[in-house]
Structure formats: structure tokens, C-alpha cells
């Protein structure tokens, strides 16, 4: 872990990117799962 930290010691931009990237990916995953659920539940039935 310390090696990783020293690699990023200069800019820390990757941490910010990782945080926002994680958030976007998880939100996208939630939306994808939700879309699959919408498609999966039965529509209008007689």
C-alpha cells in the first residue's frame, strides 16, 4: 500500500478520480439493475 501511495504522492488526482469513478459506476450499476427489473416484472395482464 505504501508503494502505491508513493506512486501517487505527487498529484492525488487518481484518488479523486477513483472516488468519483466508483460513485458513477455504482450508480450506473443500480440504474442497470433497475432497468432489468422494470423489464422483468410482468406488464399489464388481463
Amino acid at each position: 500500500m505504501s508503494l502505491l501511495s508513493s506512486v501517487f504522492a505527487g498529484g492525488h488526482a487518481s484518488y479523486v478520480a477513483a472516488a468519483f469513478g466508483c460513485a458513477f459506476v455504482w450508480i450506473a450499476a443500480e440504474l442497470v439493475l433497475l432497468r432489468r427489473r422494470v423489464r422483468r416484472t410482468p406488464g399489464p395482464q388481463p
Partner: protein
Amino acid sequence: MSRPFAQQPTFDTSPARHGGSRWLAYASPVRFYPLAGRMAPWFFAAAALAAIAGLWVGFFVAPTDAQQGEVYRIIFIHVPAAWMSMFIYLVMAMYCAMALVLRTRLSSMMASALAPTGALFTAIALISGALWGEPTWGTWWVWDARLTSELLLLFLYLGFIALESAIDEPRRAERACAVLALVGTVNLPVIYFSVQWWNTLHQGASVSLTAAPSMARTMLVGMLLMTLACWMYAIAVALVRVRCLLRERGLAGVVDRQTNGEGA
């Protein structure tokens, strides 16, 4: 918005006919279903707009912090997610209280619809907190009072979701989860207080993940915009999810014999 009550279904027993509140009519799942379908896209659009505005303010308008450099910008996702995780739990608890007192199924379904999104925000808050902690304090996890409370809140959310999926019968699941959410809500202040107490006792000059003491106004604006984005997103997703729940439990979205179209 078109008038939704142009045709009165014959099974109308809503309280909307008495006096003031037309809004109580929407407690009926059949009425709420199309309303939720119409509202959801607007909330998604509002979330997207607020997010764009918030990210622009957060990255291009807010100045570089004197102590933490650029990495402090993580607060623009960490703090809104943390605020929303707590807010959503309180809203869930409110819906659960309504479900137990008023015995409306829609209330408990709204709570169930909110739970996964609340858990998601809690997880985002935890991850972003860890990613903030590493460059700032040198460790991936900091037993900061707020992060620890977020971790316990995540456990409360996951417990709610686990209980709901473990009970087969929908009505019992809804009411059991409602009691669980209320017990958790009463417990939350105790948890926050005890974690706060535990943290200060064990660390003295504790490392804290709150932002710099004097927050520039632009930083605050950015955070508020991102919080608004998360809030609109949570509402939108909850509306879509509750429509799925209504369909799954057969309460709405089915073709009615008297009206000729689906209640969508």
C-alpha cells in the same frame, strides 16, 4: 399535467372526496402508479442538471484548498452521499411509521423502494471517505466517528433489505421491516452519540474527515448542488422501484376490466 380523475373508477373509496386533501387520494396504489411514472423522468432530469452544475462548481469554480490541495474535492461526493444516506433512512423510517399507523401498503413499499438507494449512498460515502483518508492521513480506513457511524448505518440498511428478502409473505415482510426501521431510528442517536464518545475517548486529538474549518462559499455551493442532485436521483429511482414493487405485488399496472387501458 392532465387531469387524472377525469373518469371515476367505480371502486373509488378514497378520502379525496371529503373536504380538502386531494393528495390523500394518491395513497391509493392504483392512483399513485401512473403519477409515479410521470414524475420519475422529471426527477432524473433534475438530478442530471444539478449534478452537472455541482460538478462544474466543484471542479472549476471552487478554489484549491490551502492544506489538502486538490484531493479535498472528494467532499463533493463524500459529504452529499453521507447526508443523503442519513436523510433517506429518516424518510424510510417516516414511511414505516405511516405504514404501521395508517396501515397503507404504499408507505411500506416506498420504504422498501428507498432502502437499496440509501445503502448505495452509504457505500459511496464509505468508499469516498477511505479514498480521502489515504492521501490525507496515510491510512485507508480511519475510525473517524462519522465513518464508523456510516458503517453501522450500512449494516442497518443491509439488515432491512435482508429481513425483507427473507420473509416470503409480502404483508408480513412489510410490517416486520417497518418495526425494524423504527427500532433502528430510535437507536440511531444512541449509536451516533456512543461512536462519537468512543472516538474522542480513544484518540484524543482525533483525525476528522470534516473539511477545512473555513469553507469557501463556493465549496458550500458545490456541496449543496451535489446534495440536491443525489436527492433528486434518490426520488427518481425510488419512484421507478415502487412502480416495480406495485406490479410485482399485483396492486397496480394490471388491466382493469372496467377501464379499458392499463393504469399507466
